């Protein structure tokens, strides 16, 4: 059906285009010169407004003639951009003529040197700022790095006799037992029976003792200290006297 319609339209168009068209004659109009007779009103610039505008910096179009000296800031940037463009110019070593390969090689070396220099500058900057280079691209840990104070009490710096006397005088027997225990640890450390370290627990010191009798007694002393100090058991003068006696006996056994 579509094909038939196409054939019909094609035949019709061929039929219509086959006709000849007669030429049309155009009449030419005569040329007439028309004069502009409108009256012209001449307008003049407002000299006051012109003066005001010419004083504004936005309308100062006159270029610097080079007679006034540039500021240090302008000179610095001029120098910087010159230096930068010089830096990236191909390197010349004397008046020798090099092969193209050598020239390319020199060019690459030049860029490598610039890169190394910039890298060194960045490294120095980060180092001075105290930034860890290894962790710079790593995700930060979730926790905040809050410092905390530790009471790094060195048993070798404590005057035990004085402190003990003071604690007993104040009836602070809990503190007195603590001082007795710390003194005992110092004596063991001085005798090279244990190695004093802040991170060692009491059981670690017990396990360090090689003499079974010493270990057994020290274990009992540790127990008294733990009950008094960590357990916060009430302690009176009589109990302290007994505990003190145990510590004194143990001291005699330390060579």
């Amino acid at each position, binding site marked *: 059906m579509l094909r038939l319609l196409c054939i019909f339209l094609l035949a019709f168009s061929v039929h219509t285009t086959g006709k000849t068209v007669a030429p049309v004659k155009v009449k030419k109009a005569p040329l007439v010169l028309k004069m502009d007779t409108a009256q012209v009103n001449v307008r003049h610039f407002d000299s006051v407004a012109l003066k005001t505008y010419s004083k504004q910096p936005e309308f100062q179009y006159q270029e610097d003639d080079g007679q006034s000296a540039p500021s240090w800031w302008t000179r610095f940037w001029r120098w910087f951009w010159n230096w930068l463009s010089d830096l990236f110019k191909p390197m010349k070593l004397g008046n020798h003529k090099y092969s193209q390969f050598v020239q390319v090689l020199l060019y690459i070396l030049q860029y490598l040197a610039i890169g190394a220099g910039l890298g060194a500058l960045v490294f120095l900057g980060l180092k001075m700022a105290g930034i860890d280079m290894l962790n710079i691209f790593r995700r930060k840990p979730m926790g905040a790095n809050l410092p905390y104070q530790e009471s790094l009490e060195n048993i070798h710096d404590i005057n035990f006799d004085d402190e003990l006397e003071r604690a007993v005088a104040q009836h602070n027997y809990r503190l007195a037992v603590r001082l007795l225990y710390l003194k005992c640890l110092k004596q063991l450390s001085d005798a090279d029976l244990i190695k004093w370290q802040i991170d060692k*627990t009491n*059981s670690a010191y017990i396990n360090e003792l090689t003499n079974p009798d010493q270990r057994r007694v020290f274990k009992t002393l540790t127990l008294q200290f733990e009950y008094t100090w960590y357990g916060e058991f009430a302690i009176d003068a009589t109990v302290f006297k007994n505990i003190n006696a145990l510590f004194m006996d143990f001291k005699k056994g330390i060579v």
Partner: protein
Amino acid sequence: MENDFFEQRTDMSRLSQAVDQIKATLAKIIVGQHDSIDLLVAGILADGHILIEGVPGVAKTLTAKLIAKAIDAQYSRIQFTPDLMPSDILGTSVFNPKLTEFEFKQGPIFGNIILIDEINRAPAKTQSALFEVMEEKQVTIDGKTYKMQEPFTVLATQNPVEQEGTYRLPEAQLDRFLFKIEIKYPTLEEEIQIITQQHQQKTSDQLSNLSPVLTAAEIIALRQQVKALHVERKLLEFTAKIVHETRSHKSLYLGGSPRASLAMINAAKALAAIKGRDFVTPDDITYVAAPVLRHRVMLTPDKEMEGLTPDDVIAQIIQKIEIPR
């Protein structure tokens, strides 16, 4: 206890007796693993959920089953598989044609001692079903909240994540476990003993003859007793320092949460109770530090590739902090 000077403030006799009974029950079947058993008992007493990890064949499930059997409470077991759905664990509403209404059918999570075997074989969608119940001991379905009965403890077992067909558990879920207990291979002597017991057919007989040593009510009472144990202030600070340090350690990507600090104190109390003390010592805290923190902290990828373990980092942290004394 070799102590002639101080009288006990708390009666720990029932607790000590119960602990001894549980240990003796487990020791009949389980060879070795003394530390793991101590931690399991401590976990139960501290009202915590426990994750047991180990390669296949090291008696993870058996240990968990034995603990569950030692307690006379409602026990249920869920085998986690990759196609398990949250409703398979929590339960679902089913239409009752007689009453012409929907009624809630409780899932296997409704119990006292829940053994989840191979927990890391199920994907994160299924794991998320456990979030509410593990922390708040309740389940909310169709806008209605169902409370769990006390005691409620989840004992889960898993293979290391390197094993085929396992998923890494979400951090939010790991944080809900009090301990991650790692069960290692037995020593040669222990393995010989295991084989001998099996050869003499002792194990199966003993397993069927096991009877509970504690009731659910007793567990609740013991937990109350453990909660009331004494912790000196310096030890609380010591615990906080350890957990705090995990948050800024350069080898760790994720540190311990405040929940980890609480877990460490609760676990240390339970351990002190097991040892017959009514107060905590630094030894208790350092002992529980690794099992409490090892699943909560995450190593940075480079440290993981170097072969460092969370236990190594935790040991480094403890070494830096002064023992309060």
